[in-house]
């Protein structure tokens, strides 16, 4: 493809090479992290760095900072020597998938609730004054207090053939953390069109719904995408923490505490689920980025909320 004629207003980056460059930067970033880790482990003081009674840098022992290669080798080894044991990486990957599924459910529920609330608040000023403080207040409740209540109430729900499952408690807690940025972001987005535009819709005698569809939703996209990203991160964190909190089996949160208990005798193992959690966060963020590509038509400029 050749560009002849008018010069382009903005030089389009060459897709292929920029992607390669990004990949190189990404790998370089990871290698840098590995180098810093190993260098500190090699040169840092054995007892770590303690300032005013607080340890600001960790000890360099194998217990506190296993070698990177030990962690990698450990990932390839079986979880335990039991005959049925999977390799650690597989166990971690399976657990990460379980958590991802729960977080995704929480994320979706959070989006529905968040956008629903935003619509109500946008429609009625009174609702905004009434609901918004509660939405903000809701985020101040600590999870350790909230989790047992959710599980306790959930265990009583039984409607016909439907019985509340433990993973639903976790998904609910994830959605509880996820709906907040969506509600706030969507509200700001829906309110973002200039008066001149809303008045134009008004002069067309456009209905509330038409105004919503033609004006407010498209205008909200730049606000919504960062909110969705935040919501995805919150849903993942919420799911992991809620798994720890309620003791749900099968997810990455459970593996984190289980393997943390084995960190004295098998220090490298405890890092396995942490890598899983990182991968989980990357996949979640990546999925939202994909959503951004689909909605790119509306992304004139990403708003900073």
């Amino acid at each position: 493809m050749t560009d002849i004629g008018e010069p382009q207003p903005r030089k389009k980056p060459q897709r292929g090479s920029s992607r390669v460059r990004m990949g190189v930067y990404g790998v370089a970033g990871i290698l840098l992290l590995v180098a810093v880790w190993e260098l500190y482990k090699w040169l840092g003081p054995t007892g770590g760095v303690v300032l005013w009674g607080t340890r600001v840098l960790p000890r360099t022992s194998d217990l506190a900072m296993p070698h990177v290669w030990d962690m990698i080798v450990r990932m390839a080894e079986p979880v335990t020597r039991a005959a049925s044991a999977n390799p650690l990486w597989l166990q971690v990957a399976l657990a990460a998938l379980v958590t991802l599924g729960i977080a995704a459910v929480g994320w979706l529920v959070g989006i529905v609730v968040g956008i629903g609330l935003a619509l109500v608040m946008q429609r009625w000023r009174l609702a905004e004054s009434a609901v918004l403080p509660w939405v903000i207040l809701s985020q101040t409740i600590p999870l350790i207090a909230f989790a047992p209540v959710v599980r306790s109430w959930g265990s009583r729900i039984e409607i016909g053939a439907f019985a509340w499952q433990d993973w639903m408690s976790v998904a609910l807690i994830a959605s509880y953390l996820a709906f907040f940025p969506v509600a706030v972001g969507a509200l700001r987005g829906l309110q973002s069109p200039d008066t001149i535009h809303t008045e134009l819709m008004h002069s067309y005698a456009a209905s509330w719904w038409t105004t919503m569809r033609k004006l407010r939703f498209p205008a909200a996209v730049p606000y919504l995408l960062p909110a969705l990203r935040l919501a995805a991160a919150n849903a993942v964190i919420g799911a992991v923490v809620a798994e720890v909190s309620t003791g749900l089996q099968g997810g990455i949160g459970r593996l984190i505490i289980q393997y943390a208990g084995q960190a004295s005798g098998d220090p490298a193992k405890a890092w396995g689920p942490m890598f899983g959690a990182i991968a989980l966060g990357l996949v979640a963020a990546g999925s939202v980025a994909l959503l951004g590509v689909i909605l790119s038509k509306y992304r004139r400029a990403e708003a900073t909320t």
Partner: protein
Amino acid sequence: MTQRRGRLTTIAALGIAAALALSACSGTPSTEDDGDELTSVKLQLQWLPQAQFAGYFAAQDQGFFEEEGLTVEIIPSGGDIVPQDALSNGDVDYAIAWVPKVLGSIEAGANVTDIAQIFQRSGTLQVSWADSGIDSVADFEGRKIGSWGFGNEWEIFAAMAAEGLDSSTVEIITQDFNMNAFLQGDIDAAQAMTYNEYAQLLEAINPDTGELYTAADFNVISYEDTVGAMLQDAIWADTERLNSDAAYQETTVKFLKAVIKGWIFAAENPQAAADITVAAGSGWGPSHELWMTNETNKLIWPAPQGIGFIDKAAWDKTVAGALSAVNESGARLITTQPPASAYTNDYIQKALDELGAEGVDVTGANFRPISVTLLEGGN
């Protein structure tokens, strides 16, 4: 390892959360007959599935619950689920919890009853380095003492109170899920359960030798040998329902019979019992799991009065310890004697008698612990 979270936050949150009203709550939990006429029962554990609870998982795996006409759901606890709270909220029918923690809950208003004292002995240790000069509770003053907190610390303070020591001189360091803080020198004497954290030490590599640590590297103070010893894993039931619900009373005896059979199975088949808990979701390595089964068995067997029987002297000792204990910030666990409803031997005695009549040995007279070799990382 045990349940480690506060209760007050939960209670405070109940009020706030009520305002958020999820609604749709309905139905009475459990003890309803299923189609196949099995009574469903929910049992709340105090931690993740592991051999500490081997008897319950064995009873389920071996079909002992079904033989008694029960279908039991064993519910693990995470960091924030307090078994006695789940029980008094009506979420579950029975709960496993340590006696001192529940005594605190009872004083705070929980209406629950100890119906079977499965662990007859305290499994708590305080472990220090062999050269630390700490080899009894008397050496604790002025040292950094490790504990998990959340109600697991009261034996330390009861033992110190009995020696006339000032608990405000110790620095309590909250321990993590593993023994790294002790191994790295942040703690002078760390809390350890015989069946879990002590094994974690013995399956860790000594960086000086490149070999596993051995028992000779540590001083071990067992609370069972001190006045501070308190009763631990017990089965708790809802006092109200015990008094008024005939079906629940009947279920309680059946449940206890199945549990006893489960623990007898674990005593006689430690390897099989360990395999069952691994299959039920325990994440420990095979040698650690077997160690845990064996050490748990030692806390239960032999049981001269029958497994689960609540020995009045041991109960009174626990209550006295709980009354005398003052923690490092001056707080107390309980201030008054617990009510008489806090424990009963009625149901366990009935279960023991019925099994005794069937010729089952419920005292573990022939119990012999096995010897377990721990491998690196509990593997």
